[in-house]
């Protein structure tokens, strides 16, 4: 049984249909890269899985349970954690307080404040600093750490490299590789194709709310993804081959 199955999902923003009948599945331990141009529906899809957007139709099945109508805080309890675009930290709170908030769901697991600080050593001296006073890289590390503190079965990462210097992105991705090798299941939304393909086992390229290309990262060439990215290579929307 797949950890996550998205079945014919449709999500609307008012009159705009941002996600149009998307279907795919993710197995435990896999890393799925979700790529596509701005406005392709990646973030909306991720937020719909996390429960931040309600689906107009279709289903999200997580660990065998249909999540239709389940609010976002309940989805965190079930094991889904989202690192939102723009980090969305609680800027009036310290790094430690932001991390401790991730424990609200009360899921059992190994993640603790100490472990997050070991995973992201740049946060250690900033433990008691207000999140609003952190650099972009420190904020991103805090946002990822906060999500990990809920001991998720599925980690959703939205544009983790956005607005960061290449050096900081390297550090963030080094930490991500550590998480991936530890068996964490991840869906990663990323604009940087090379980075996305380098860490993922599967890739989905979205175009205008639909799946334009889906396949194993090893078998899909950068050229194919680029064509799908710009709409030059259209593939009928459907499930990702297991």
């Amino acid at each position: 049984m797949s950890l996550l199955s998205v079945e014919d999902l449709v999500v609307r923003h008012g009159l705009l249909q941002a996600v149009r009948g998307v279907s795919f599945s993710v197995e435990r331990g896999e890393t799925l890269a979700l790529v596509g141009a701005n406005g392709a529906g990646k973030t909306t899809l991720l937020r719909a899985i996390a429960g931040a957007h309600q689906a107009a139709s279709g289903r999200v099945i997580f660990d065998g349970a249909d999540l239709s109508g389940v609010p976002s805080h309940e989805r965190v309890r079930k094991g889904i954690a989202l690192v939102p675009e723009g980090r969305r930290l609680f800027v009036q709170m310290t790094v430690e307080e932001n991390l401790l908030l991730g424990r609200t769901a009360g899921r059992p697991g190994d993640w603790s404040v100490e472990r997050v600080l070991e995973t992201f050593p740049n946060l250690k001296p900033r433990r008691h600093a207000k999140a609003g006073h952190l650099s972009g890289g420190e904020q991103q590390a805090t946002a990822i750490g906060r999500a990990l503190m809920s001991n998720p079965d599925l980690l959703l990462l939205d544009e983790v490299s956005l607005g960061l210097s290449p050096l900081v992105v390297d550090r963030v991705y080094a930490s991500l590789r550590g998480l991936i090798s530890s068996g964490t299941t991840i869906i990663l939304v990323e604009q940087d194709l090379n980075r996305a393909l380098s860490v993922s086992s599967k890739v989905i390229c979205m175009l205008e709310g639909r799946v334009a290309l889906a396949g194993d990262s090893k078998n899909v060439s950068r050229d194919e993804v680029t064509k799908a990215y710009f709409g030059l290579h259209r593939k009928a929307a459907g499930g990702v081959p297991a």
Partner: protein
Amino acid sequence: MTNQIVQGILLGGYYALIACGLSFMFSVMRIINLAHGSLAVLSAFALWLLASRFHIPPFLGLAIVLPLMAVIGWALQRFLLERSARGGALLPILTTFGLAIVIDNVLFEQFGADTRSLAPFIGSLSYDSWEWPGSLYVGKLAVIIFVTAVVLLGGLQLFLTRTGLGRSIRATSEDPDTAGLVGVDARRANAIAAAIAMVTVGLAGAFLGMRATFDPYAGATQLLFAFEAAVIGGVGSLWGTLIGGIVLALAQTLGATVHPQGFLIGGHIAFLIVLFIRLYTSGLGLGGLLRLSTGKAS
């Protein structure tokens, strides 16, 4: 003058107590609760009822009334304020305004227009005082109210910063959508915050009844004092609320020394000065303030 300052500071404790719930609800739920004063008076009437009909002293009656106020706060948030908040920022203000009218008139219907007090039920505490050096006489009840305010504000501060539930409430107040994404049930956090706010209102109502008289329509005045103290201290800042209460009380005390009817005027002037400074320093500038006052768009 020293006497006036000491009395003003102690009175500030009461204002901080009544402003605390108003400030807390606004900072967490962004709701200006215009029924705040009426709910305090409701608590005072509940304690008076317990004392006069069932011979339960007010301090013991708090053990019944405060949990009841918490339930009222929880229910208000879940069934009234949460729903009205979906209709925009103005609707909760109108809803609480309506609620205040309902509470006032139900109290009038049940208890009539007579003024009442809890003072007869607390023995000599309402008029007992300590003599401090310099021939200063300080009311025991005033000191109890001030200490209660400090303990309550300190306790709330500790609760918000040191407990998981407190952090959840702060997260909800800062960004309810993201709070949900980290596992916080924003509805529950808001309902608990409303319950806490109502407990502080209940306590303020009890002290209102002990230190003065009240009637079914006394809520509006208490709301005004709470609003002024909260704005002076900075809405959302717990210790700021205490400072706001003290500044308001000192201004009122100073006003009373200038003119027999200057008690309220002194407080209003302090409130307006602070409000003007806050608006001026908020980036509006003098031009913006003038445009606001004349209603002309920039």
